[in-house]
């Protein structure tokens, strides 16, 4: 009996609803229909009057969650796609992110964002928004890469007294399976060594962890041991774990599926070069998507995002330096 990444997200919401009467779910098509991806399947049946369909109004959905949080609720908002959170951007960055700082009242809301690309999804159903939200103070941004993290980090997000942007990767929904959900190992804010190594470090998160692991396998055939750091939390970023890894390997590839300008990979490199410059044996490298909107056709899409082969090629350049 195995469980997928998507089922883990559903199970986590089931547990959150079961354990805490102040939790409710609000989002488009999430009640009877069970969500566009079925992440809330049957939850409205199991928890009547706790799971609600929302109008197509991302701004109002987030604003509503903030008001509810002030009154002691712990809402989980489902954005149908992370892309559409740009319509709720105002409430997220101006209202949710500033509430505690301005008024001393915490804002415990969780916004689930089905993120990242899948073949055929095109420019408006494929975006990764973690860098945009990380730029704003007052938000916590997580991007689980495993079934366990999808489960435990969602439960942790709901318990957290601050607004959490929970970036769940659509590519992993069905592709990623585990035999069972293991124990909770790390809290939000701590990175994980997904694969130990000593010749180079890849720092990445979300679906790219799996591409990185495959590239590391490939390089192993050439005798290289590549360490893969899964950030888990984009913000706060576990700089200590990143620096410790670079100290072991001397080489860094920062990898992300998001657009290349600025962003998480740039932040990783900024931190390593400013705090761990002396640890580096080679200039740190970055690999992101191309700097265009995300294409529709699979031929273009596969070339737009980093893949096992482009990551392996980047690693070889890094190791040759």
């Amino acid at each position: 009996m195995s469980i997928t990444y998507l089922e883990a997200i559903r199970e986590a919401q089931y547990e959150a609803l079961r354990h805490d009467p102040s939790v409710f779910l609000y989002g488009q098509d999430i009640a009877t229909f069970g969500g566009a991806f079925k992440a809330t399947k049957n939850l409205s049946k199991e928890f009547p009057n706790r799971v609600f369909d929302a109008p197509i109004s991302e701004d109002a959905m987030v604003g509503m969650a903030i008001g509810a949080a002030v009154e002691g609720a712990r809402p989980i908002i489902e954005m149908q796609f992370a892309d559409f959170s740009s319509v709720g951007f105002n409430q997220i960055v101006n209202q949710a992110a500033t509430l505690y700082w301005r008024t001393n009242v915490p804002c415990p809301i969780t916004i689930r964002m089905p993120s990242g690309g899948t073949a055929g999804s095109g420019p408006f159903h494929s975006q990764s928004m973690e860098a945009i939200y990380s730029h704003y103070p007052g938000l916590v941004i997580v991007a689980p890469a495993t079934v366990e993290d999808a489960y435990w980090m969602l439960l942790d997000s709901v318990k957290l007294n601050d607004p959490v942007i929970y970036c769940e990767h659509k590519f992993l929904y069905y592709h990623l399976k585990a035999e069972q959900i293991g124990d909770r190992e790390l809290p939000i804010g701590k990175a994980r060594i997904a694969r130990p190594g000593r010749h180079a470090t890849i720092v990445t998160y979300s679906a790219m962890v799996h591409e990185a692991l495959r590239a590391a396998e490939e390089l192993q055939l050439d005798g290289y041991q590549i360490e893969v750091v899964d950030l888990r939390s984009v913000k706060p970023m576990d700089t200590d774990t990143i620096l410790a890894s670079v100290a072991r390997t001397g080489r860094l590839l920062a990898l992300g599926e998001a657009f290349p300008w600025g962003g998480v990979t740039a932040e990783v490199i900024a931190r390593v070069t400013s705090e761990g410059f002396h640890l580096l044996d080679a200039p740190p490298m970055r690999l992101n998507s191309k700097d265009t909107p995300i294409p529709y056709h699979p031929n273009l899409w596969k070339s737009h995002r980093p893949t096992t082969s482009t990551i392996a090629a980047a690693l070889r350049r890094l190791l040759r330096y």
Partner: protein
Amino acid sequence: MCLVALASPINCVETDLTADFRDQFLLCYQHMLLARVLEEKLGSLYRAGGRIVGGVYLGKGQEAFSAALGVQLRKGKDIYGPLIRDQAGRIAFGEPILDCVRTYLGAVTGPMRGRDGNIHRGRPKEGLLAMISHLGSLLSVVAGGLFARRLAGTLGDSIGATSIGDGGTSTGAFHEALNMAAVEKLPIVVSVANNQYAYSTPNTRQYACENLVDRAVGYGVSGMVVDATDLASCLKAFRAAVAQARSGGGPQMIVGTLLRLAGHGEHDDASYIPDQKRRDPSARDCLQVAEDFARDHGWMSSAELRDFNEEVRRTVDLTISKVSKEPTPDPFKEKWQALSCADLVEGQHEA
């Protein structure tokens, strides 16, 4: 539910003037006068320079419309999301003027502790939300508070109320939130102060419907129009709207017609408002109208009005003098922490 959006203004008539109405009228008048005197003082502090950094935003001309809603609300039970020109409504709701002065002067003793200023203040846990500058954004937050209470079974007959201007009704946030509040049939009163100018932009460049209240039916909410310079009519309208909301009538929209008797802020001389417009009935000063009404009905003598005026000025002066001696924020004592979970705050990553 039978929806009514009345384009002809609600008018107060003699039979409305019960003893209870009179008491509420006089209470409103007191709140209005306190707001006016306080804001005049803040305006002069701003013009003198030094004491107030940033802007000063006055509700001059909007006090009747604002207070008439605020006075219907019960602090500790209802949720109020006031906007930029709601000093009178805030006082009516029960916000002490100390909170106002402390926020304008940036005192650490105030609710915003120098982290935010002027009209961006509130005490959310007491039902008084702190507006952000993005217009229309507060309506969904008020709705969310009511929604959560309904889920928790604690809603009772509490309501939410929030304000917006003619310009704010053009935002997507306002549209989304009012539609959502209507879908959820939440007990919420939305006051729309149509002061005819959004900063400098006249109504003709803001919306194309005949009257803003025409939109109410489109949202599925009840609507009323009122001459917002007339406190008695404002009271009649808000008493009716609040009663409707409390008894399950869903969202209520009240559009008040008036003219802002100040600039957008004290930095703005409002030279874009033509002289002719200033002679329009909508340009009447609601404070004077209320004072005349109270005197004409024998509810307050000239001597009482004079005494009260003096008392209000004394209160304002004492408050400003008290706050002036209070500490302003010290950047070295500031925690610089935007998250409530201290363990998730990143250290300063400096080279």
